[in-house]
């Protein structure tokens, strides 16, 4: 392994993955890591603005939001939370396996992650289907039979619900795309303990999407529901 050479020596042999404008692998790795973090900053504010809208309307239309959230399926939401947490574990392990040069482990973890991601989307689709059946999709057909007086503002809840979970699901789909690409490269054996930045920053992205859900779950399913 070339890494055995002194790491901060600039005379290090050129790794094939070192781009021309960087001096060392170290510098390249740090740059992509920093880049990903900055991207996540934009994501935080992206979702954050939606959270603001949610917080605002929830504060304004408290009763309606409570009534609306009673139509959420805690079981499915809870399972999905567990699924995502599990996928975060596999992602973390994929970083570990690439750091320790264990290709098989890496590939297994990447596949597991994708399977879990798909499971999440599947369950989400079931939930969406339920909502459509119950006329909870915002628009002219929206109904809230148990509290018709609250229907208008409950619709606000569902606009936010579909927007937030939809955007989240969209991020999952992008994540699946990224993981497919990582998987292909991993199978080609491109990653090693010297070069695993793509695995790591892909992982950062996935964890972030997971964190968004960690907040969405209580906000959209749980709070204020006590039976």
């Amino acid at each position, binding site marked *: 392994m070339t890494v055995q050479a002194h790491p901060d020596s600039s005379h290090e042999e050129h790794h094939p993955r070192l781009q021309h404008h*960087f001096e060392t692998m170290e510098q390249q790795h740090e740059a992509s890591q*920093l880049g990903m973090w*900055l991207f996540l900053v934009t994501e935080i504010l992206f979702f954050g*603005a939606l959270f*603001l809208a949610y917080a605002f*309307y929830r504060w304004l239309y408290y009763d309606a939001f409570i009534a609306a959230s009673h139509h959420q399926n805690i079981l499915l939401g809870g399972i999905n939370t567990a699924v995502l947490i599990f996928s975060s574990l596999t992602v973390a392990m994929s970083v570990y396996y690439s750091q320790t040069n264990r290709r098989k482990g890496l590939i297994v973890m990447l596949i597991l992650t994708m399977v879990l991601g798909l499971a999440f989307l599947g369950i989400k689709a079931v939930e969406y289907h339920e909502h459509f059946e119950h006329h909870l999709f915002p628009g002219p057909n929206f109904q809230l039979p148990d509290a018709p007086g609250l229907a208008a503002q409950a619709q606000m809840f569902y606009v936010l619900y579909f927007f937030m979970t939809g955007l989240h699901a969209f991020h999952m789909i992008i994540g699946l795309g990224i993981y497919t690409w990582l998987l292909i490269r991993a199978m080609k054996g491109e990653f090693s303990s010297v070069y695993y930045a793509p695995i790591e920053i892909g992982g950062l992205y996935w964890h972030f999407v997971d964190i968004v859900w960690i907040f969405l779950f209580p906000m959209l399913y749980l709070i204020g529901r006590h039976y």
Partner: protein
Amino acid sequence: MTTAVLDPNHPLESPRKNYLNREYGVLSWLLTRDHKRIAILYIVSITLMFFVGGLFAVLMRLELLTPQGDLMTSDTYNKMFTLHGVVMIFFFLIPGIPAVLGNFLLPIQIGAKDLAFPRLNLLSWYLFMIGAIGTFVVVMLGGLDTGWTFYTPYSTQYSNTHVTLVTLGAFITGFSSILTGLNFMVTVHRMRAPGLTWFRMPLFIWALYGTSIIQILATPVLAIALLLLAAERVLRVGIFDPSIGGDPVLYQHLFWFYSHPAVYIMILPAMGVVSEVIAAFSRKRVFGYTFVAYSSLGIALLGFLVWAHHMFVAGISVYSALIFSFLSMFVAVPSAIKVFNWTFTLYKGSVSFQTPMLYALGFIGLFAIGGVTGLFLAALGLDIHVHDTYFIVAHFHYVMVGGVVMAYFAGIHFWWPKITGRMYPEWWGRLAALIVFLGFNLAFFPQFLLGYLGMPRRYHVYVPEFQVLNVMSSAGASVLGVGYLLPLVYFIWSLKFGPKAGPNPWGAVGLEWTIASPPPTENFHETPAVRWEAYDYNAFEEAQRDRAGTP
């Protein structure tokens, strides 16, 4: 512009290969990852956008010559100012200095071979172009009439123009902006040359760094606001819709959370350019370097705390207005720091008056006027009267046209020899600078008077007593237009006929002046070491002599 450069029959007679003549063919440009070539791509597209936006302005000013609104229908006029605003802001001024000058210079000024993510950089340009082309398509399809602010519920429920398309275009362009900022920030953090500590960096880099912070933190909020808007328009129900209890003012909060900081996305790089130019043409370190550097960060961060000063009469709470007005006063302080420090840079300097310097001096004066009128607006009791009148229009053209565009011109003239290897004709340059300055003031000073008199903005017809001032303004705009066309002509002329420029035509300090004009593709043959403080003329000259002496 590129064609002349590209033309294989007229290569720039540079002794060596440089980034311009290294490869030929359209694809070598469209697929390039060289930050310098990407900068050229931006120059071309942004210049185009500027003249398109300018064309809309000219048509508006023609219409406003008479009070009756007889040149075009009111719908057409409404589309004019909307497209003028959208094109100028999202497609010219926000990308302007960072994407052109920043792209070209940032890696060179910090001694790097390229930006950290060259492919991302190219992607930014493509995203920008997608947004721009989308906007052109909208123009073809019949335009947009919401004003550049897209206020709901007009934009979501009433306008029957192509709001969805434009918001999506602006959304995509927003990502271009985010990625540029991200790229710059990583580059500054991770790729500075040895010896280039933070407080040895040129002030332009500080300014771009501040700009990047804003781009990263603010743009996503606009993105989400526009997405919500588009969704509401498509689904016909959304979170700003009053009929389900939505609050249109919430949209304004989200919009201005971005759009106020966005005005600093425009002005900060401009201030960076001016710092460079003032230093170069006074042959002096910028007075109070550290204060100027920190004030860039100060503007970037404080700029986030003032957004609701655009909403003083929109129905926000009185107490909230008090807070935002208070914070608006804070954000003016770092600007004041800069203005005074630039002024004192001239003190005991060695001042020469080439074109870039003329623009820079013009910038300081006009920005000061534009800036202090910002204080008028931030003063609550007064804003009630002047909000949404031509006073606002005058204020923001003073800071944006008198400020940012002036600085953009200063920068383009300053670095033109570096970018193209050619000098522009100095005499014409000075003449154009003079025309621009005079035309500008004639065009926009009367608007302050109009505004205080009470002429609302976005008015197609107006009451007759405002006519004289409007005619003055239109006359000024024509002069201004001539002033802008001149550089276009002589820059293109200079590509072929301009005298060749040496590596350091102005005798300025900075890494970009140590390499050939135009620079080679890899910028530096070997990583430079920086041994001088920013703008330290003596140490810089010594270092250059050393380098020449030890081949």
